[in-house]
């Protein structure tokens, strides 16, 4: 297996520290993406960490309440990641839908069902995604 080289199995996540340092508001970004159901439940100024159950392992992690709702509720909606979005936006939404748990290009491909793992990997390593704080683990 290749060592020191990113592959379609390498994991990526959104670096929230980068957002802070850049003076950008990640919570605002997540709130803008929320579906109607979650927007009814929560407001932007509701800052709270909640218990989030991993949908594969059952592990409980602390997650921002907006991210928890986005990943568990909004992510089930077809509109959350729709094919009309630019690919980079779809990839970003896929990371939010995973609750910002590190995802590989192959896992993102399985979620968004667009392009291919190799194309998605290229996008993950692109300057655009770097600007959005997407970084390899």
């Amino acid at each position, binding site marked *: 297996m290749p060592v020191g080289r990113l592959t379609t199995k390498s994991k990526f996540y959104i670096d929230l520290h980068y957002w802070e340092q850049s003076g950008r508001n990640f919570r605002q970004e997540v709130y803008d993406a929320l579906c109607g159901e979650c927007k009814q*439940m929560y407001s932007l100024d509701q800052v709270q960490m909640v218990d989030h*159950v991993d949908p594969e*392992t059952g*592990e*409980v992690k602390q997650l921002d309440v907006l991210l928890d*709702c986005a990943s568990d*509720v909004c992510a089930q909606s077809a509109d959350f990641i729709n094919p009309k979005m630019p690919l980079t936006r779809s990839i970003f939404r896929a990371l939010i839908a995973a609750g910002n748990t590190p995802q590989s290009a192959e896992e993102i491909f399985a979620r968004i069902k667009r392009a291919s793992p190799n194309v998605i990997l290229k996008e993950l390593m692109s300057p655009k995604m770097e600007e959005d704080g997407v970084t390899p683990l």
Partner: protein
Amino acid sequence: MSSASETYWNNFSINDKDVERVYAYMLERGEAARSADLARIVIAARAKEEQERRQRLSTQAVLYQPKLVLEVGQRLIFSALNEIEGTVTAVRDSNNPRLKPFQVATVTFADGTKREFAGAYDLPHPLNELKPIVTGAADESPEEIYARYGAKIERLLAARLRMDREFVEQDGKWLLRGLLTEINVGFLNIAEAAIEQNNVGMSTLELARVLELDLEGAKRETTLFSLDYALQRDERFVDVGPVGEPRWYLNRLVPAEVWNVPRVLQFGAAPLYDKTLPPELETILSEIEDDNNDDVRDGRAAAKVDLVLTYPHRRMGSLPYTQGVRALFPEADKPMLVTLLDEYGTRIPAWVVPDGNYIFGLKAWYDRNKLNPGALLELAPRGEPLTAEIRYQPRREGKSLWVKIAKVENGHLTFGTSPRPVAFKYDEEMLILPEDQTGLDKLTASNYGDRSLDALLADIFPELVKLGSSSIHAKTLYSAVNFAKRVGARAVFSALANSEAFTTTGGGYFVLQMAARPA
């Protein structure tokens, strides 16, 4: 074998962990490994994994599911985390206004790490659907599993490894690409020159010695693998060795007749008959080594072979690759370069062409010794690898003999007799000399020989009768029809025995029934 085990191995597929194990094994081994060895690694690891899983399950640890009500001190096995085991060390209430309250249990693992997991969580979750069944992967020993499923696992593993650039394959063996010995174009140029100079197929080991590659100790197998791999991928070189024993030659020196079966050596269509031959014809057939398109290797020991030369082989300078001839050489699954040695010690390079069922390369030898269809030939084994002896029985030419000759008139095969010198011992019934080679070549190129065997025999039979006898021997008809198309003796004898157009008069002789003659 238990049904759980059958289910497991019948539904088996290679996963990433299997590939990682194989990679680690090959990295540690440092040299090429056979597919069988890699399959055994995978089977042993899976069986061990299952055994360990069973041991853990049997020691009162419970398979973790979020719906379980958890208690401090409870031991859990996490199937979604490679079956690791942990112990609940604390339990608290959940904090998520969106969800019905559930437990959050702190689990401590053997390495001291702590992680939290949901309990009393009865919302839909894939782990809540799990049924903790034992897979059966370890019901039998790895040897028993390999005996039954080894071939399938090898196939699946090979298919998976072929998709991964880290693995290279050569003749059923695998090596990590990073471990290949570098064989640059300079080495290959030297190999090309060596083969051309020797004009024989050279084994990989022989070439490695010419190239002075490192063959010491552990490096030897990797070096040979790497050289084979490089030669295979350079179109200058072709493997002309027996099955499993590469011998390298130059593509540009291989005669065209080895890659493309010449028309005169292409078998004609022969109908299949259910009935065996009458005993008389079986006896006659057993006296000649049949040139038969269905011949396969039958495991017989190498022994002297007596052949009668037929026209197609005389014309092209070839021999039929009969069962007896096959036994003289190792098994070939592609063109194989061998040597035939005549009584003067002349070494004749010859090509076994399994697909065409012939050995090519004897034209000059036939011409030099003035051989013709009907000549008696003998092949014999020789201790040297890929070598056999070839002999004919010389005859003082003396007075010319009146022999049958084959010629072409108005696009049809016909026969006559003529005095000719004959310098070799021959089969009386099968001796027919080609009279008009240009005409015969045009006949071969035409569709004359594409007619049914019955039609050809009916056309040829009266032409032979014109020579003075109404009854014709089966061997004569066999030799004659081969001037039109290459056909085996069994096919000819079967056609004679089963067609209403011909009637036997005993002793292998037939007469033509004019009324029943095919159209």
